[in-house]
């Protein structure tokens, strides 16, 4: 068996899951209904379709991490708990093959799921509005896929680090709260905590760029910024607060930096996960 065989075997096992098919179907129905119910006020057909996906992007920001984490949290932890990992490694496979094979397989699973959601939404949006702004839809699909891949990487890495199902669940739920919910729940927002420490505890002058930079470490904020890269100017949204109206954001808070944030979130968890898996006593 090779990396490819590990990926193929895992993908086959994953696609047999009734739960995954049910989730994919439900999400497809959900995006269909959103695309159907959306009504753009005084917008042309193509603009309405873009507005539909822009609105859906807000929902995807919260939903796609759940899809990715649920599809991936047991990738390696499940094999470790059941003992299957010994069988996998008993064949001429290295731990690298298992780790990367599982990652490739889970990326494939969520890619199919996200593609299905986009397909149903696109079909309904086109059927209802008669226009397809292909470049924007493809761009949003690519950005959404990148965002989902970040959470697959995090989940597979955590799954490689822990050895039990219960811990894998706890790690997946915890990562969702730390990377997503802490940036959207008013009152416990990371930005508020940083502002409190910076201004109240340390007594510094307010520094909005600093608080923005801390916010920007979240994949969710990066996703919202990345969407600005692929939509026309009138659909861009202001994601980060500005010190005053007309203030220009520094280059390190630009929309393009979101790709760097994604790259870091893809590379660092995978490197840590692989390092811990490589040295784990199985």
């Amino acid at each position, binding site marked *: 068996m090779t990396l490819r065989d590990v990926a193929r075997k895992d993908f086959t096992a994953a696609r047999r899951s009734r739960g995954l098919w049910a989730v994919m179907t439900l999400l497809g129905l959900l995006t269909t209904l959103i695309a159907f119910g959306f009504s753009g006020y005084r917008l042309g057909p193509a603009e309405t379709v873009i507005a539909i996906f822009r609105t859906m992007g807000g929902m995807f920001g919260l939903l796609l991490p759940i899809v990715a984490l649920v599809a991936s949290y047991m990738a390696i932890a499940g094999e470790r708990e059941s003992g299957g990992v010994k069988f996998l490694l008993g064949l001429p496979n290295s731990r690298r093959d298992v780790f990367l094979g599982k990652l490739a397989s889970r990326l494939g699973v969520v890619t199919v799921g996200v593609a299905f959601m986009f397909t149903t939404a696109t079909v309904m949006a086109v059927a209802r509005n*008669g226009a397809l702004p292909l470049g924007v839809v493809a761009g949003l699909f690519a950005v959404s896929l990148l965002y989902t891949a970040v959470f697959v990487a995090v989940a597979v890495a955590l799954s490689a680090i822990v050895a039990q199902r219960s811990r894998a669940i706890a790690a997946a739920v915890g990562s969702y709260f730390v990377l997503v919910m802490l940036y959207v729940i008013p009152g416990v927002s990371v930005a508020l905590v940083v502002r409190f420490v910076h201004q109240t505890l340390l007594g510094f002058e307010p520094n909005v760029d600093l608080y923005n930079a801390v916010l920007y470490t979240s994949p969710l904020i990066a996703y919202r910024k990345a969407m600005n890269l692929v939509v026309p100017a009138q659909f861009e949204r202001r994601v980060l607060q500005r010190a005053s109206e007309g203030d220009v954001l520094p280059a390190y808070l630009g929309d393009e930096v979101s790709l760097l944030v994604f790259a870091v979130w893809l590379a660092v968890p995978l490197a840590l996960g692989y390092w811990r898996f490589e040295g784990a006593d199985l």
Partner: protein
Amino acid sequence: MDDGIVDTATAVLLVVGVVALLAPALFPVQQVLYHDTGVGTTMNGTELEARGYTVVEYENLSERGQDIYVATLRSPDRSYTVPADQGAPEFPYDGADDMDEANDREGYEERQRRTSIVIERPEDADLPPPHEPVDRIRAEPPEPEQAAASGGETATSASESARQQRLEQRRAAVGRYDLVTVRQGTPPVTDSGTLLRLGSVLLGTVGIGLGGYLRSRP
């Protein structure tokens, strides 16, 4: 159950699912033209013209324009839609196409002006009643000198009667001018063609989900 039957059912589900999912995108609904008399105005023709609205006498409308206007008046929700190629030539459906999104009062009024036409109804016209909100027009308050000077009850009553008369005249004048707002857009969600396409996409989604699972299971 026989494996052959399951395999056939799975294949049918997948084929039907793919066709039902993709077909609506190949045959999208056509845009429609909306005509709305629900916005209304409390201004008369002269005031509307002064504000830049186009005022057209009912008799000068094309036959199609007259039909659409009457159908809109008869519509219970004060809105009437026709296919995109069946509008009236004098209605400014694309009047605000080159405008940006209106975010302030002036922008909104400008958009309203560009996408509206004021129809002057003939006196004693055999038309359905207009939708103009003439009830919102109130009688002007009595002038203070007049109120102070009118000592007797008879004088007050005459003054009140004159005010009521002026009010009725004003309402009749406003009621002769009907503001029709038009636009081009997607059909409403309750449109039968739109609902048919929704049903097809939902069927396709479930078909692919179910068929995909049946095909993948061990």
